[in-house]
Every structure is written in C-alpha cells, then in structure tokens.
C-alpha cells in the first residue's frame, strides 16, 4: 500500500502547492484546477491530445527508469530522442518511395539505432573511462541539438517552408491515426509504447539480463563478486535507454508531423525524469505517471486563454513541485516514523 501512497501523496502535495501559486496571479486555484481538468479530459479531442503527449513520456520515462534500475542517471533522453526522430525523418525523406509496412519498420529501426548509439556513448564512457554519465549526457544533449540543427538546416531542409524542418517523409511511412479522437494525432505509437513498457517489465524481472542489470544497480560490488561484468551491464543499460528514447521519433515523425521539426519536444526528455521517479522506475508506474504528466501538459495549454494572468508554464512549476515532493527522502521517512510512533 505504501508503494502507491507515497507517489499519490507527492502528486497531491505538489499540485496543491503549485495551484496555491496561482493565488499570487489573482486566480482562484479551484478555478485553475477546473480548467486543467476540462482541458485535459473535457472532450474526445482533449483526451486524445493528453494521450498524444503521454506517448513520448512513456518512452522517455522508460529511458530514465531502465538505467536507474542499473544505477545510472540518464539525463540524456532529450538528445537521444532528438537523434531518434531525426533518423526516422531522414530515412523517410531520403527514401520516400518505400511502401508500407516496410517503410515504417525501416524508419523505426533507424530511430532505435540512432538513440542506441547516442546512449551507448555515455554508457561506454562511464564503464570504460569512468566519467560521470550525468555531465556527459547533458553535454551530449547539446551536441545532439547542434547535429540535428545542422542536418535540418543544411542537408535535408524543406524547400517549401521557412520553418526549420526537414523534407516530408514518403506517404508509405505514415502510421495509422485513431479516428475516435476527432483529429488529435493519437497513432499506433501509443499501443507501441504500452507494449514496449510491458516488454521492458518482462526484460527486467523475467530474464537473466534484467536480473543482472538490477543487480548492478542494487549492489555493484556484490554483482561483481557474483561474476557479472558490471561495465558491460552499464553499457547495455544505456543502449537500451537510448533505443527507448529514440522511439519517441516514431510517434512524432511517423504518427504526427511527417517530418523532423527542430524544437518539437517540449523537454520530453527532462519530463521523463519526473515520470520515472513518480513511477518508481517500474514500467507500469511509468505508464501511469506518463498519463498524469501528459494530462498536466495538455491541461495547462489552455491557461493562457482561459485566465487573465496564469500561463501554460504553470505545468513546469507543477512538475517541478511534484518531483521535489517525490524526491524528499527525509520527509517520507519522517512521516513513516510518525505513523509508526
């Protein structure tokens, strides 16, 4: 029970504090909460947009959770997903004639591969050179952004527009979108994300590889004593993370935009950290947390119109406060002590 109680309390606490902030802006927190709820779930289109935002968050949440199970902090999902999306769009722009289903399969492989490579670099650097993955992944985010900007503006520029985006992908690449959501771009990427989460769960708890990954995360020296190649496990964990983050490109490029747009991600990679933490690094928890953060993102998007002074950036404040609440170890152990006393 405590397993669920702590994240739920953290969400309630973070939301309450964040909504309290809207008082400063002269809004009633209750009114803001109503807008959030209506905007996230009010119509089938709104619900669709919530699911659309949740999809990449499932992938990035997993991309943070898997390495955390192995004791590594992946701040690099943003760079990994950028290159994943870029790879999918490049394949689609360079070979526009490929037929369905070969085309999306090919582009998906490219997205996974690009993300994997970008994850492998900090994994290898940590395992073999001992340099910390946190700084390396942050640096690689900037490098990925530079590379993506170069490819987009110099190599694959869409000649028909001023927008910084690549040429459109071929018609065979587009994923099926569900009609139920009145035009919200909910594509096959959503079921793909849920299935991926299930597969990650099986990998982590039902395979030898998963056992070894978790062993490295729980007690490195014990894992090494048991004959596990900890360096290799670290590299594998970061490769998996990169591949998972790369899959964001499938939903964005094949399921939505049909091209790579510079800056398409509203920091999905960073929000993924919050998703993984709130989901306690469990795939099921990640899916649930991704839905919550997707709803927050969609919910706050209408604040600019619906209120006088509260802006959509409130979502960042709410997310930050929720992460802080989850992360406060001391608070939780204090509460535990109180309830036991």
């Amino acid at each position, binding site marked *: 029970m405590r397993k669920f109680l702590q994240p739920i309390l953290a969400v309630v606490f973070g939301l309450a504090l964040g909504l309290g902030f809207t008082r400063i802006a002269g809004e009633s927190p209750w009114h803001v909460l109503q807008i959030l709820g209506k905007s996230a779930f009010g119509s089938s289109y709104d619900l669709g947009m919530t699911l659309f935002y949740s999809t990449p968050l499932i992938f990035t949440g997993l991309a943070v959770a898997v390495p955390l199970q192995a004791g590594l902090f992946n701040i690099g999902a943003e760079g990994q997903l950028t290159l994943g999306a870029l790879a999918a769009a490049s394949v689609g722009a360079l070979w526009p004639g490929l037929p369905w289903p070969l085309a999306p399969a090919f582009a998906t492989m490219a997205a996974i591969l690009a993300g994997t490579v970008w994850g492998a670099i900090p994994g290898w650097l940590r395992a073999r050179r001992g340099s*910390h993955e946190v700084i390396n992944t942050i640096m690689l985010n900037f490098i990925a952004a530079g590379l993506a900007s170069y490819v987009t503006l110099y190599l694959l520029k869409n000649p028909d527009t001023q927008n910084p985006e690549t040429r459109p992908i071929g018609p065979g690449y587009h994923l099926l979108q569900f009609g139920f959501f009145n035009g919200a771009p909910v594509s096959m990427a959503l079921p793909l994300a849920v299935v991926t989460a299930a597969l990650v769960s099986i990998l982590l708890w039902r395979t030898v590889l998963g056992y070894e990954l978790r062993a490295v995360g729980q007690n490195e020296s014990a894992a090494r004593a048991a004959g596990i190649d900890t360096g290799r496990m670290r590299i594998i964990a970061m490769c998996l993370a990169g591949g998972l983050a790369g899959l964001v490109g499938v939903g964005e490029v094949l399921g939505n935009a049909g091209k790579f747009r510079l800056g398409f991600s509203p920091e999905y990679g960073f929000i993924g950290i919050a998703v993984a933490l709130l989901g306690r690094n469990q795939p099921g928890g990640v899916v649930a947390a991704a839905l919550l953060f997707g709803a927050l993102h969609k919910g706050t998007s209408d604040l600019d119109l619906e209120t006088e002074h509260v802006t959509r950036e409130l979502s960042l404040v709410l997310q930050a406060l929720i992460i802080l609440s989850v*992360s406060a170890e001391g608070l939780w152990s204090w509460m535990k002590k109180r309830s036991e006393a």
Partner: protein
Amino acid sequence: MTGELVASTLRVSTPLIFAALGGMFSERSGVINIALEGLMLIGSFAAAVGTLLTHSPWVGSIFGMAAGVLLAAVYALFVIRLRANQIVAGTAINMLAMGLTPFFCKILYDVTGSTPSIPIGERFHSAPLYLGWALVAVCVVWMKYTPTGLWVSFAGEHPKALDAAGIRVNRVRWAAVLVSGALAGMGGASLSIFLSSSFSRDMTAGRGFMALAALIFGKWKPLPTALACLLFGFADAVQIRLQGVAVWGDHPIPVQFIQILPYLATVLVLAGFVGHSRPPKAIGTSFRKG
C-alpha cells in the same frame, strides 16, 4: 579584429565565471549543483526586474543575487535537510525556474516572452567583467588560506573529519549552497543587464550547464575554472563572429559545429583524453551524523 574578439570573449565569459565560481562552493562542499542553470535564470529575471524598478544596475544585481539565494535555499532545504537526490532535486529546481520566470513575467509585465527593455544608461557598461575577475582572486585566497575555505573543502572531501573537529557539516553545506545561489544569480544578472538589454525567456540557454562543465574542466579550482570559462567564452565569441563567414571555398563553417565545441571538449576532458579531473570524494552524498 583580434582585439574585438578578445573583448567579446571577456564579456561573454563573465556570466560563466560567476556561475562556475558559485558552483565551485557548492560542489567543493559536497553538493552537486545541476541547479546552476535555474539559479542563473531566476537571477537574470530578478535583476532585470530590479533594474527596471530602481533604474540602477547595482540594485538590480542585488535583486538577482537575492533571487538566486532564495531558490538555492529551496534546493538546500531539499538536498540537505530532506536528503533528496541531488540530481533529481537539481533538475526540479531548473524546471521550477523555467516555469516561474514566465509566470511572474506575465503577472508583472503581461507578457511571457521578455521584460521591457532597459535603457542603455541604466545597464552595466563593464563593471561585472572586472568584478568577476576580482572574485576569482578572492576565491583563490578564500579557498586556500581561510578557515571557512578549508571547511568547505573538508565538507566535500572528508565530512566525518570535519564533524569530528566540531564543525557542523550540514551548516557549511547550507552556507556553500546559498553562496552558490548568490553567485549564480549574479551570473544571470550579468546576462540580462550587462550582455543584453532585457530578460528574455530561457535566456541562460544551457550556460549553467556550461559553467558546470567549466568547473569540472577546471578541476574544481577557482583559477583553472575561470580559464575554462574563458575558453568556453572564446568558443562562443568565435561562433558569433564566424556566422556566415566563408572559410574554405564558398562554404561557411556551419555554425552548429562551432557551437558544439565546448560541449565536445567537456566530454573529452571528462573521459581523461585531455588531462584528468577528480570530483570531491563525498560529492552527491547526504551527511547524517553518525
């Protein structure tokens, strides 16, 4: 052209120097400071607000530093008192700053993009540049020759020994994190009221992380860190100059390749390909009395 490049390097490295020195206090005391980015951002916003209110960049920078201290106090509360994971809480602080700045900007000026522009006579001309280097000198002496400087180092290297000597480790860490907030806030201030004419959204653009990289590059020592900031500032200045300049044939060097150089350099340095850099021993761990 060379003189111009030197001047421009010195100017653009100023915010980095303040932030990196701030990061130095916190990290040398054992607290990782991923939050530098957010501390700078809130500082740049508050400094612009303060300058617009009082028409003095000096008062403005005090606003910036105060905002940095305030946000750093939230960070310290979570990582020191509540023993939150430092990287997680740091990321959250960055998000908080990214969310709070447009939130307050909208309340004060009814726009989320940027503050009104500050007239040139009310902005800094070159004071932060000199202040930054004076601060480098102060830090060199402070860390090496004063008791408080030694406490900071011991809190990060051998917290148990410091505790045994009767100094409260967590109190030293609190102070170090608050100082880092003030300095990062000043770094942010030098972005909004020295290098540009207003606060604009997300104007730090990764400079907090770059300062962190400079800190590692400089092996957590004040002078080498400041020199690393100069190097990053140079890359930035070159990048501004080289935009659109043809270098071989008719092709300009894509600016993206120049922009990523500092980040690439950091990765290579960390990997030990270019010198070696060792973090304080107790960095990232919370201290609980025995």
